[in-house]
């Protein structure tokens, strides 16, 4: 194990928040995202010893499970219902003094192209390296690095009116 532990709870504590955040890209609600993470995590844990990079495999599993769930008709209906009231759930925790900035970042994240947002999430909050992200997405490393730079630049553009700490 990369972090020296063979306990699934260590993996879930380390990656759970980023995994739910990643799954939220394709799910209607936080509950759906947790369903996806649950399914992906169980699959990951049962087959982690057969993969070269368990962390990359975990994030790839979440994406695949999320896309599978998105294909279900019931999920799509719930997604439509949820997008009608997007203010219901926050993505990030934080004090009330950060609310405005945090909301602006969440909104900007939601406007990013999907392939840029997933790279950003895996890098910033998942702590994956570019080669790991490349493995998870089955995409060349250079492409992953480019998407990351584009994502940061685009976010900064959108937040240009907001002061950066």
């Amino acid at each position: 194990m990369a972090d020296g532990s063979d306990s699934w709870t260590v993996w879930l504590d380390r990656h759970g928040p980023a995994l739910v955040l990643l799954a939220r890209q394709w799910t209607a609600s936080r509950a759906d995202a947790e369903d996806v993470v649950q399914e992906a995590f169980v699959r990951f844990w049962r087959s982690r010893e057969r993969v070269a990079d368990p962390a990359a495999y975990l994030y790839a599993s979440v994406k695949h499970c999320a896309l599978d769930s998105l294909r279900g008709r019931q999920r799509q209906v719930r997604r439509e219902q949820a997008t009608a009231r997007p203010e219901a759930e926050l993505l990030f925790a934080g004090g009330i003094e950060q609310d405005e900035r945090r909301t602006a970042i969440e909104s900007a994240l939601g406007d990013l192209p999907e392939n840029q947002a997933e790279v950003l999430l895996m890098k910033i909050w998942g702590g994956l390296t570019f080669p790991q992200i490349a493995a998870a997405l089955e995409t060349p490393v250079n492409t992953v690095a480019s998407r990351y730079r584009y994502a940061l630049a685009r976010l900064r553009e959108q937040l240009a009116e907001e002061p950066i700490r």
Partner: protein
Amino acid sequence: MNEHKEFEAELAALQPIQPSAELKLRIAQRLDEPITAASGLRRSRGPLWLAAICGPIAAVLTWFLLTGGSDETDPVTEPPDQYMQAAAAAAFDNDLPTLWSYRQAIGQSSAELDALLDKHAQHSSEPKPQRAGAFVSVFARSDSQLEDLLGDL
């Protein structure tokens, strides 16, 4: 990338909301369960899917390798009809010393076999009739050619 360092740090400082405690419980329950029949079935379907996809591909490849991708059959491997008919006629001709004619004679009586052998012995001492069309023999060389060869020895 350096121009983004400060911004990256700001993003990293944001903490995604923790998963619910219920998620951890549900995962614990799932991991305690034995692998379900459904997941086992899903796993066992893998080779069937592979077979369904790979089978026709393998068949097409085999056909392509054997025929070179052409629908036409090799003309060399198909003997011309006239030779086939002549060979078939020769095989069932009582005047020729064929396996079929000897079997027929043995099937009737030993006297018939003797008569047939005498007949063929008599024929072999006579000059051979010229048949219309191609000469067909189960041997590569005619009797006269063989006799010539034996004379050389």
